[in-house]
């Protein structure tokens, strides 16, 4: 991609973000309920107390003025005070971000590790039992709701067999010294195997729950693109040359077949953001998704607006990365 094209793509971010901001603001404004009333437990407080709190929260200003203030703050990288935590929104979000990033990456790794080998095998053994089993698995993976599947895993692995912990990120006794905020990284930096294993044990069920739908989609994509590639003349030619089956599959076929997989993976990583909200709630994972859900319930406008903006930026950047990756991997679409 030329620098000019790159710049154009980056500039596209601006209208997208502005649009997202307007939509979120309007949706929050149209939702019935008032954070001041929620905070004062609804009917309990006197109207004067509610009015005082509304003033304190800045909610007595006209919506347009509030929107202007929000945008004004946002361009300076500030998002105001969280109405309920009574601390800067940026600080509250920053505390929760590492857990979400770690979980999303773990889910992504799980999805790739499961999907690619299975997709290749299903394509190679097309119509065989493995193919059918994998296709059935994909169907389950796409259609099982996360909150239900997560609880099922909990009951099996945590309650019945007691193999994995029920919730949380790490046990108190196993915590490594905090350096980066990412527990896996901190465990490695501290050279603590117990911390690493403890983190992985906590990460396993949420990552599987979050990564399963993505794994299902990626497997289908890998399988079908692999099938396409295997029908190509150059594969027949490679086989005719007498190359080994493994070499034909891995070097000649898979490299090309992975193109759409990589693109879809980048796009689907954006979808993980939505899944995070459910999975983090089920597994008590201290991430941003859960924080956003809780904030929506209590009408914590500044936090929801900032978080959605962050999601939008992430999503757009992931799309951008997908495009970039595609052009790198596929010389034919290079501009």
């Amino acid at each position, binding site marked *: 991609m030329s620098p000019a094209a790159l710049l154009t793509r980056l500039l596209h971010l601006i209208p997208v973000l502005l649009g997202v901001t307007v939509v979120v603001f309007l949706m929050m404004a149209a939702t*019935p*309920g*008032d954070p001041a*009333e929620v*905070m*004062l*437990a*609804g*009917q*309990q*407080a*006197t*109207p004067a*107390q509610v009015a*005082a*709190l509304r003033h*304190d929260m800045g909610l007595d200003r006209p919506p347009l003025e509030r929107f202007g203030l929000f945008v004004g703050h946002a361009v300076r990288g500030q998002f105001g*005070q969280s109405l*309920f*935590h*009574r*601390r800067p929104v940026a600080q*509250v979000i920053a*505390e*929760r971000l590492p*857990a979400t990033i770690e979980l999303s990456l773990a889910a992504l790794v799980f999805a790739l590790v499961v999907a690619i080998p299975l997709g290749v095998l299903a394509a190679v053994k097309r119509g065989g039992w493995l193919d059918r089993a994998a296709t059935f698995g994909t169907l389950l993976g796409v259609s099982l709701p996360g909150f239900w599947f997560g*609880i099922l895993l*909990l*009951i099996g692995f*945590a*309650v019945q067999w*007691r193999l994995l*912990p*029920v*919730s*949380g*990120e*790490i046990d*108190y006794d196993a915590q490594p010294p905090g350096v980066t905020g990412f527990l896996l990284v901190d465990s490695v930096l501290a050279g603590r195997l117990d911390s690493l294993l403890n983190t992985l044990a906590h990460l396993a069920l949420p990552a599987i729950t979050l990564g399963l739908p993505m794994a299902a989609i990626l497997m289908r994509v890998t399988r079908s693109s692999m099938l396409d590639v295997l029908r190509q003349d150059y594969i027949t030619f490679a086989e005719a040359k007498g190359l080994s089956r493994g070499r034909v599959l891995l070097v000649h076929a898979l490299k090309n077949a992975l193109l759409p997989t990589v693109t879809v993976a980048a796009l689907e990583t954006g979808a993980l953001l939505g899944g995070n909200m459910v999975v983090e*709630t*089920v*597994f*008590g994972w*201290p*991430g941003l998704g*859960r*924080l956003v859900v*809780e904030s929506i319930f209590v009408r914590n406008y500044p936090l929801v607006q900032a978080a959605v903006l962050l999601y939008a930026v992430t999503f757009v950047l992931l799309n951008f990365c997908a495009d970039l990756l595609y052009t790198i991997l596929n010389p034919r679409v290079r501009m």
Partner: protein
Amino acid sequence: MRNNAAFIAFFAACLAAAPLAAGAAELRIGFTSDPLTLDPANHRSRETETIIRLIYSGLAANALDMTVVPDVAKSWQWIDPKILQVTLRDGVKFQGGETMTADDVVYSFTRLLKEGAVGGQTSPRKGLLGPVTEVAKVDDRTVRFVLSEPWPVLPAMLTFQEVVSKDFTEKVGTPGLATQADGTGSFGLVQWRRGDSLVLERFPGFFGGPSDIPPAGKACVDRVIVKIIPENAARVAALLAGDVDLINDLPAHDIRTVEANANTRVAAVNGTRTFFVALNNGKKPFDDVRVRQAANYAVDRQVIIDRILNGRAAALNGVMSPAAFGFNPDLPAYGYDPAKAKELLAEAGYANGIDVMLDTDGPQKDTAEAIASLLTRAGIRTKVQVGEAAQLRARWAPDGTRDGDMWISSWGNGSLDPTDIFVPTLRTKDRGNAAGYANPEVDKLLDAAGLETDQAKRAELYRDAQAIVNRQAPWIFLWLPQDLYGASKRLVGWQPLASGMLNLRDACVR
């Protein structure tokens, strides 16, 4: 500087204890939500207060039967109806090592009362102090609460506030107090992993807690780990798996699962939220007391409690919890009697029955439908209309359109004092008077009780008012749901409190 050294000493003690902690008693709790802050003055959340109360103490606390007892206060007395003098206990230490004095108490309450005193914002808990205008130091062990008008409920309302250390708060500032703590409670904060867990260690210098709640003394367990598990199913799973020893907010439908497990049990306590159906006293047909009484006779509360609430609620014949101050235990019950209901309707001129609408929000829909079907059987043909809670509240507010017939609603009464529930919901035109009930005699009794500092006389006035309300039936009286907890059988000595706070001082893990 004193604080720094003391804190280092405290944490050094904690660290020194850590290697020994392998055999130490550890209590793990599965809790519904992460505290919003650890600043006692900067939130309005019961869950947050529950956590804060493990670390901080207040001037007053609730005993198991919810009576109000001195906590870090030694005693209090009304100098006149507008001045409450509080004497402080000697030798109460903050976890940082300092001794609590009147300056700390004055500082804590000034933070609560003064506009903009909490990092430029006003404390959202200010409203809980009603007409208190000032808290002044008399001497090192005595403070005075000055009120703009008599407010006898003040000691009960003091249970909602905690005392912070002046030096510590000035040192860390309001932003620091949100995430660090230096209280006088039975546990000191070791770590708070936001959204994940809090780790608390027994505070060796703890003053022992309210002497009216025996046995006074230090906490039994060495360490408390509060794990934040918002999802109901996961919280129950954590209890069943033995990951935690105690969970709050046990869903009623999981009672059997917890009871069936050999290692766990259910603990219940009457909550503080009264449920009722507000009848629109201001318009036909519920402007007639006989129709209102008929509605009360038509609803079999026990059946609904047993079938929908799994038996986990106490039927009420009035507005207040049996544990509340001034509760009248002699109120006659409206037993289930559809024949009598029809009789009363006929007497009121509605021999062919009436057609009415019952407003409800989503969560109460099942209950509303059960009530509607019972009412319909007795000739009060009821349709259920589901609405959004905020809109329903606005519609049924004293200044709302008030065009509905019935609304299933509730009112929380954390202080368990009538001032907080009886007055707002049933005094003429008061802010929560959804029924539009107006009775000068009840108003007079409530107003008199509001000014009466003699507690026995005050209770008597409320009891009289309850008797009138019971006869006049402005509501269909419903119930008080229980707060449910799941506990491991390893956990002994712990009992649930109606206030929702967790008294972990006597909790031991076997």
